[in-house]
């Protein structure tokens, strides 16, 4: 897992104040250092992204080339390919299900939020570590166990869970209905319980750390937007994941202990089951009470990272810092009251549908504000296209494209036709999947120097970006057409229906684009692991950025700063400030040191700053004299 040798080429190792002489196990495996835990999440996330991506290639082969002889996959899939070289139908559903579960939870929740919340929170707020290093370690290892269990379920004789990533009962509750609802579903539920525990342990830690461990002068109004986004993400997770836990627990009861929370009036396999009085719609409400906020759990960190990367590389302050925070707050609150827009045609009361349509379309407003603010940040900037910057611009593009289609789906009247078609698939893969994935990539390219003390190769980064950016659009944009034509999701093939017996060419195109996009990720993999050992050594502040993490040594030790933790005197977006010689002023530079660039209202703050410094001086002198 942690193959990273941070000591390589560490010229600053002797400076490290807090040297523990860790053994291999305490340094790389059961570590309590937030930076190492962040890297553990990242590498595990990359592993899962490869598995999740590979599964999608398998079902894209089926969808793009329905007549293909898949015998060549027998060495990997064994019995799931039958004698005539066809993919098993139940296994097709299992592939779709596991792709969704892995990507949403293991890659975009743990891999994105887990990596960057852990890595960046202490570094950017000026703390030595998380509030509880031990809980942080537990958080990773619960995630790891969850992953092990989910991974094991891929190899079950009857296959992993196969009822879609939403695992709606009764399908997920009855083994008679689909083989994946046997042991596969049991393991899915156990894995999710561990995953939820992991998320909660992490979330509590992020919130506590941000509230309590900010360095001197780091007020909430001076937090980088990354930290704001991690903070709000953790709040959403803390409030919504327990509901998924409850939903899963009731499902466990229904499956194993004969209760009827979700089951009623079922006749299957030649017998009437004893369950009465339950409601499958109850499960959907509980699931989407997490499921919708989950969208923002994966998206907000990506937006936070993008804000930071775009501001830094535009050499401009992020436009509308306060508006960005307010819109994130708005999204946070509204994310809890829109869940039933996933259920317009579930049979729930149509009046509820009206209510949720209004609430859903309100959430589009703060999202629009964010987009316009990004655009204005680029306007009259001095843009440096680092790979991170490219991925951030790509994210904004996906956020627009996928966000706009949400206006169709949030409108219950239009949703009648589009629900559960490929239009939905296109929508959420762009706005949540690809946008968040691009946020993750932007973060890796941007903070790689801080993680490993070396630079990634930017040319390879450019190639990776363009192949992925074009590839993602070529995969998901055509799906809009297929969706408007009414092609339903999770279909093994469409040839049974006259209305959907077309677009074989387009589906083939999508599959080829998916394969190309997947293969281009290996350019990134190579770049990532090669640069870790052989990359160019990173300078102190490679992107000329203002935030605190760049004031640590190039390879920070446990404790982050060798001496005192630096104090903070200004917000993190003083880029290209008129009057200053450089085009950036780090947060650690006092206002009193930059009289040439201070704005009128900052002159007031200078007085205050001087006063505080004078008082501090007195305290220091007093302490000295006591000795």
């Amino acid at each position, binding site marked *: 897992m942690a193959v990273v040798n941070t000591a390589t080429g560490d010229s600053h190792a002797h400076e490290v104040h807090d040297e523990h002489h860790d053994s291999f196990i305490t340094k790389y495996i059961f570590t309590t250092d937030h930076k190492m835990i962040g890297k553990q999440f990242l590498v595990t996330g990359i592993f899962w992204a490869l598995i999740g991506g590979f599964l999608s290639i398998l079902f894209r082969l089926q969808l793009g080339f329905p007549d293909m002889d898949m015998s060549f996959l027998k060495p990997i899939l064994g019995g799931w390919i039958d004698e005539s070289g066809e993919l098993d139908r139940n296994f097709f*559903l299992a592939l779709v299900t596991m792709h969704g579960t892995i990507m949403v939870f293991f890659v975009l929740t743990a891999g994105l939020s887990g990596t960057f919340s852990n890595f960046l929170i202490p570094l950017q707020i000026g703390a030595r570590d998380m509030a509880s290093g031990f809980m942080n370690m537990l958080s990773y290892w619960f995630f790891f166990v969850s992953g092990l269990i989910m991974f094991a379920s891929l190899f079950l004789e009857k296959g992993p869970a196969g*009822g879609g990533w939403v695992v*709606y009962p*009764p399908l997920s509750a*009855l083994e008679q*209905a689909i083989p994946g609802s046997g042991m596969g579903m049991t393991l899915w539920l156990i894995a999710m319980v561990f995953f939820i525990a992991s998320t909660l342990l992490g979330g509590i830690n992020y919130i506590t750390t941000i509230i309590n461990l900010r360095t001197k002068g780091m007020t909430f109004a001076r937090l980088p937007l990354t930290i704001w986004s991690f903070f709000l993400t953790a709040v959403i997770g803390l409030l919504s994941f327990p509901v998924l836990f409850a939903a899963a627990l009731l499902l466990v009861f229904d499956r194993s202990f004969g209760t009827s929370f979700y089951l009623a*009036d079922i*006749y299957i396999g030649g017998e009437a089951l004893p369950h*009465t009085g339950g*409601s499958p719609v109850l499960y959907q409400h509980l699931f989407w009470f997490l499921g919708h906020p989950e969208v923002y759990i994966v998206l907000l960190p990506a937006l936070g990272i993008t804000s930071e990367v775009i501001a830094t590389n535009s050499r*401009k302050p992020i*436009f*509308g810092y306060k508006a960005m925070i307010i819109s994130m707050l708005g999204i946070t609150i509204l994310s809890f009251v829109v869940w039933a827009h996933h259920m317009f*045609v*579930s*049979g729930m009361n149509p009046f509820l549908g*009206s209510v949720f349509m209004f609430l859903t*379309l309100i959430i589009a*407003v703060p999202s*629009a*504000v964010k987009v316009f*603010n990004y*655009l*204005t940040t*680029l306007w*009259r*900037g*001095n*843009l*440096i*296209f680092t790979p991170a910057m490219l991925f951030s*611009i790509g994210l904004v593009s996906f956020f627009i*494209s996928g966000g*706009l*289609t949400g*206006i169709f789906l949030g*409108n*219950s009247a*239009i949703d*009648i*036709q589009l*629900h*559960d078609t490929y239009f939905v698939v296109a929508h959420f893969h762009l706005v949540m999947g690809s946008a968040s994935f691009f946020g993750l990539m932007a973060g890796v390219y941007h903070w790689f120097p801080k993680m490993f003390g070396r630079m990634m*190769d930017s*040319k*390879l980064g*450019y190639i990776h970006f*363009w192949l992925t*950016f*074009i590839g993602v659009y070529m995969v998901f944009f055509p799906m809009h057409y297929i969706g408007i*034509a009414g092609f*339903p999701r*999770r*279909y093994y093939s469409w040839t049974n*229906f*006259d*209305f959907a017996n077309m*677009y074989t060419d387009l589906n083939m195109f999508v599959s080829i684009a998916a394969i190309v996009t997947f293969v281009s990720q290996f350019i990134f993999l190579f770049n990532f692991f090669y640069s870790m050992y052989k990359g160019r050594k990173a300078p102190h502040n490679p992107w*000329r950025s203002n935030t605190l993490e760049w004031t640590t040594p190039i390879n920070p030790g446990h404790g982050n700063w060798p001496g005192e933790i630096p104090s903070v005197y200004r917000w993190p977006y003083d880029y*290209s400030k008129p009057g200053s010689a450089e085009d950036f002023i780090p947060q650690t530079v006092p206002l009193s040191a930059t009289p040439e660039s201070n704005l009128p209202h900052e002159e007031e703050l200078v007085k205050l700053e001087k006063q505080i410094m004078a008082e501090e001086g007195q305290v220091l002198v007093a302490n000295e004299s006591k000795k």
Partner: protein
Amino acid sequence: MYGFLIALGLLLLVSIIWMVYRVQTLVSVMKGSDKKRASGSNKVNAAMFMVFLVGTFVLMAWYSVKEFDNYQLPIASEHGQITDNLFWITMAVTGFIFILTHILLFWFSYRYQYEEDKRAAYYPDNNKLEIIWTLVPALVLTVLVISGWQAWKDITSPAPENAHVIELLGYQFAWDIRYAGQDNQLGRHDFRLTNATNSRGVDFTDEKALDDFESNIVVIPKGEPVLFRIRARDVLHSVFAPHMRLKMDAVPGMPTRFWFTPTKTTAEMREETGNPEFEYEIACTEVCGSGHFSMRKVIEVVTPEEYQKWLAEQKPFIVQNPDLVANLPADLKKVAEIMIEENK
């Protein structure tokens, strides 16, 4: 053999990429361009954004126009006209914003690329702008929501009294159809009564059930309201009739419904599409197991006259399966027997 060749080809490809990578790294070190703040790639990337913008826009416009008749399914229901109008209005609004914001995004990226002697503008906020782009989207969305809400309210309102009642029962992996018969009222059902002959679990002690009949296809009259009563026997299913713009989940233990008025007969649609084999179809859109993709049912829309004629030809369920009424209470049994007699 092929495997070996493919492996060899891949190896060759990887080694070429590796060589190119090493050469470009060394060249950039030699030229010292890795020390510069923005290398020549900056210009290339900026230009690529413009190429991407124009290229994808042309591709999108060309394909959207070329394929219009393929992805725009003909509409065959009254409310479908309304929801499709809403869809295309929303498409116009969002399409405009989509193109505008993307032009800005990529044009700004190109226009404001790094120049060594230039300095970015220090422009941290502008409350007036923020208010404008909060209010304008809010207003536009309000209009869209209200028109959508009107349509939704009408579509989900109770069905008219005279609507033809038809029950659709989803199970793994097909649909069962039951007509309400002459009284236009479906008989009660109970899942515990389900067996090989009575696959719908109809309760024949309910008098209304006696005239209910089954059918292999959904036959409905053009221009008259039709009410689908939707049930599921085992797991969730979802009735999706794409040409009718109709979708509603089938939920075990919770009957659902959807009413609509078809506007074109199958024959008319065959003429319109030029496809003599055209059929209206029902598909399942809620994942339900291995046969999810094959739950096809045909809807045949006919003229009201043809419908009445067809209706008169149908025989109640009990006529085909007289043993179902064998255990009924005496009075009901008499009614049933009369009915069976009449239909012989």
